């Protein structure tokens, strides 16, 4: 199986798992809908991100390491991060008015859920050992967070996976984006699992 198809399968299965985990965490109907997934050149991804580079967002970044290596980033607009914080805390929507440590914890938890599901997909479905690092949460311009992500992941790579997803929680729609930079050399080192 070629690497691109492999990554696509893993992401789709991870999203399905993450939907279930998110529902349990929020104790409310939650679904993560995958809108699009594609591998693009870093220049294209950067150009696209910089078009909204001054958008204020929260981002959760971490490394996936083990048999294969990936860099993962999840971003959500500051406005939606406030909504998400209320959902995680089971507050009335609109209660959280300002981003702070509580919001950072909520977004970090989402990062844990998503990365945990990606790791599980690798482990259970392909018998590959992958462990996520502790997520780091940023509150900043999208351009700044994305540049940092690209810098850390692209020293050896020139392509990036763009994953656009929607979080639907009960009647609230939250848009977010996820990015993966797989360290392709680590994929080539696998023997036959894919």
């Amino acid at each position: 199986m070629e690497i691109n198809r492999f990554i696509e399968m893993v992401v789709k299965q991870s999203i399905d798992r993450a939907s279930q985990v998110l529902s349990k965490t929020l104790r409310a109907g939650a679904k993560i809908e995958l809108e699009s997934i594609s591998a693009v050149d870093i220049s294209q991804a950067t150009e696209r991100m910089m078009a909204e580079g001054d958008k204020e967002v929260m981002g959760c970044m971490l490394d996936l390491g083990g048999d294969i290596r990936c860099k993962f980033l999840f971003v959500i607009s500051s406005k939606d991060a406030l909504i998400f914080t209320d959902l995680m805390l089971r507050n009335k929507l609109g209660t959280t008015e300002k981003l702070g440590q509580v919001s950072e914890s909520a977004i970090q938890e989402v990062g844990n859920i998503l990365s945990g599901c990606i790791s599980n997909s690798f482990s259970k479905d392909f018998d590959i050992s992958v462990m996520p690092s502790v997520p780091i949460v940023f509150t900043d311009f999208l351009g700044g967070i994305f540049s940092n992500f690209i810098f850390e992941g692209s020293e050896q790579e020139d392509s990036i996976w763009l994953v656009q997803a929607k979080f639907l929680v009960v009647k609230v729609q939250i848009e977010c984006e996820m990015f993966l930079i797989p360290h392709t050399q680590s994929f080539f080192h696998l023997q036959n699992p894919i």
Partner: protein
Amino acid sequence: MLPSAPNKKPGKPAKYADTGIKEVLQVMMKEYDITCSNLKAKIFGGAKMKSGAAYDIGQKNADKVREILKYKGIQILNEKVGGEHGYKIEFDISTGIVNCRVFGQKEEQY
């Protein structure tokens, strides 16, 4: 986003300060017949976005940019670099004024 292009696998020139600036200067010289002596610079960015990172790539990028500009004889008129957050800049090409806002701070003019 990185200071210097690796020798073994150059990759994309725009990823690196040394090859990126060189490429921009080449285009300016070729397309607009501008020489380095005609140019002035203002530099922004170079933040250390990730606290606890093993090394400060932002600082290294800023240092490399200053080194390259000095080598090319391009005067740096003004700069705002460092910190731990992203930068948003708007450059008015008619006045040369740069409006710079660091995340969480007020906008300043340079």
